[in-house]
């Protein structure tokens, strides 16, 4: 249901910008945070170890031990803050010295033997108090007369935790701010970037039937839009051309209708002016029938040209023997040609892949023209020449050369080389445009040439795939 809903490109891009910015900055922040955390732990651990090392050195001296016993407050102040813990005790006895201002419960941990140098991995990290980590290290000291003592030093990492927490907060805040800024910037940028598109849309909206000649302005448009503008303008070009042609056809058709209707109206009105003999009424009616048939034919042709169903024509194609078809055409026009003092020469080979009625109609239109304009005593030649790609059908006659400027327009509807000569009742100026339509229906080609008194129409029917 919502599949056809349109999404906003601007919004989508802004959101993507924001997400990307947040993800990128957050990842970077986390990486730096881990690095910082590791560094801080290392520093703290080193401090703990160095303290225990110092105590080791100090306590191996008996003077110092005496000092601890007599003046423990000296050592209590030594640590200087409330987070440190220090205990010195002989195994199984109450501690000689216990500095524990925060009253942290000391876990029992395995001391490092006296002959062992302390390393970072000897430091134990415990969950500690209220989620604040507690690091501690214990070592055995050989203290001469007193035997072996155990020194435990630890530290609650409140400061470190606070530093890290504030760092974390900064990372997330900064990433969020960056995301919001980028989202806004992205939104504005995309919105601005799409401005030319909206301008084009407004312009295109203004183009209608009245101003088809107008074109979209590519001035100031980004490079990415140029192909679209160009194809849109080409489409307008084609539309406006088609529109002009269509209008021309309607006008031409209206003009063509004038002649037969005028004849019908005039003749009938004159006939009704006074009483006439039955014979003259019959003559009138017969003449009316002629005009009406002309109208019906024109209608038929116009409908044929307007029909937009090439698929069915293509479906009805058959393999037709070229020799048969040219022979049939020759038979059909034999009498007409003889009347005009012409003879028909046919030659056909190959198989034409075409809809039979359309092929015959095209050939008949060409032959009718060829006879109409052929010189008496000359030959009308109809040839079908087979090639690998299809069959070329050529209809050529001898007569007046058609001036070159007319050739490209011959296949237009109602186009006539000589306005005055050809307005006979038999011709309606649609014959060749029907040929053109038929060839288009067959995905074929058509062309005409006229040189040295020989005019040749050539139709190419592509072979079956």
């Amino acid at each position, binding site marked *: 249901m919502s599949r056809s809903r349109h999404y906003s490109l601007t919004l989508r891009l802004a959101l993507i910008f924001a997400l990307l910015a947040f993800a990128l900055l957050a990842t970077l922040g986390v990486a730096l945070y881990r690095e910082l955390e590791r560094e801080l732990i290392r520093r703290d651990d080193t401090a703990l170890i160095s303290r225990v090392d110092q105590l080791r050195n100090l306590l191996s001296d008996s003077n110092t031990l005496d000092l601890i016993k007599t003046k423990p407050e000296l050592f209590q102040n030594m640590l200087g803050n409330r987070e440190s813990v220090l205990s010195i005790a002989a195994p199984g006895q109450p501690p000689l010295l216990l500095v524990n201002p925060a009253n942290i419960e000391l876990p029992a941990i395995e001391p490092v033997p006296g002959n062992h140098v302390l390393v970072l991995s000897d430091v134990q990290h415990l969950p500690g108090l209220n989620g604040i980590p507690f690091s501690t290290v214990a070592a055995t000291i050989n203290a001469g007369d007193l035997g072996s003592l155990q020194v435990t030093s630890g530290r609650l990492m409140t400061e470190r935790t606070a530093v890290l927490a504030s760092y974390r907060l900064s990372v997330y805040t900064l990433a969020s701010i960056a995301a919001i800024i980028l989202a806004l910037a992205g939104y504005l940028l995309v919105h601005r970037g799409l401005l030319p598109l909206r301008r084009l849309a407004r312009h295109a909206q203004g183009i209608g039937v009245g101003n088809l000649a107008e074109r979209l302005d590519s001035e100031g448009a980004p490079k990415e839009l140029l192909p679209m503008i160009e194809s849109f303008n080409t489409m307008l070009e084609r539309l406006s051309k088609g529109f002009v042609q269509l209008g021309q056809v309607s006008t031409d058709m209206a003009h063509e209708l004038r002649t037969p209707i005028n004849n019908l109206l005039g003749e009938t009105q004159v006939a009704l002016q006074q009483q006439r003999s039955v014979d003259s009424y019959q003559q009138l009616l017969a003449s009316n029938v002629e005009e009406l048939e002309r109208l*019906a034919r024109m209608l038929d042709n116009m409908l044929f040209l307007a029909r937009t169903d090439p698929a069915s024509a293509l479906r009805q194609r058959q393999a037709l023997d070229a020799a048969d078809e040219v022979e049939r055409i020759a038979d*059909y026009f034999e009498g007409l040609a003889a009347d005009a003092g012409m003879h028909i020469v046919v030659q056909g080979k190959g198989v034409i892949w075409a809809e039979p009625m359309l092929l015959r109609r095209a050939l008949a239109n060409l032959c009718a023209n060829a006879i109409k304009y052929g010189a008496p005593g000359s030959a009308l030649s109809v040839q079908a020449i087979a090639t690998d790609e299809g069959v070329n059908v050529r209809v050529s006659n001898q007569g007046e050369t058609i001036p070159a400027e007319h050739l490209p327009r011959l296949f237009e509807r109602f186009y006539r080389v000589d306005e005055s000569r050809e307005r006979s009742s038999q011709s309606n100026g649609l014959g060749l445009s029907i040929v053109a339509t038929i060839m288009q229906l067959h995905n074929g080609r058509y062309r005409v040439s006229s040189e040295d008194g020989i005019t040749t129409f050539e139709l190419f029917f592509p072979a079956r795939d």
Partner: protein
Amino acid sequence: MNILVVEDEPKAGNYLLNGLQELGYSVSLARDGVDGLHQALETPFDVIVLDVMMPKMDGWEVLRRLRREADTPVLFLTARDDIADRIKGLELGADDYLIKPFSFAELVARLRTLTRRGPIREEEHLQIADLQIDVLKRRVTRAGTRITLTNKEFALLHLFATHQDQVLSRSLIASRVWDMNFDSDTNVVDVAVRRLRLKIDDPFQLKLIHSVRGIGYRFDTQP
């Protein structure tokens, strides 16, 4: 022949009624689809001419309902020259169709074909007055004189001889003789008929081919 014409357009209905009656057929006219269907179901007709575009009940509906009860041949008339329309008509059980405008002679020829019962027996020898046609040998003589005809001239004469007394339209002739099923802008048929006349009529007293003004030709021993 008993014909029912269902046509709502007054002028068209009238000329169909008059034209067919003048040819000697018994014709009933219905002015709309409801009346047409009623008559068609009441009376057995030999053939029905049915207009498609009608108020109240259109031709398709009439045809659909008629076909539930009777298989009277139906020729439908349509003003729409599109293939889907024609196919629809034939699928509903119509037997033939004509697209308006059509020639009256064409309509008559189609009606005859629709009502012809049984297969047509091809005559091997035809005799019209003193004209003799040997169909198999394609030999034509008139008053004992051998007449040489081209293939198409023979086909044309054969068409005429097998449709005596009937008016044949130019488009019907073009389609039967040359298999050209479209109205061409040429007067090929007139020329062919003239050339045939030159051979079989001109040298003789009794003329067999008659022009019917505005319609076509008739082959008849009567003028």
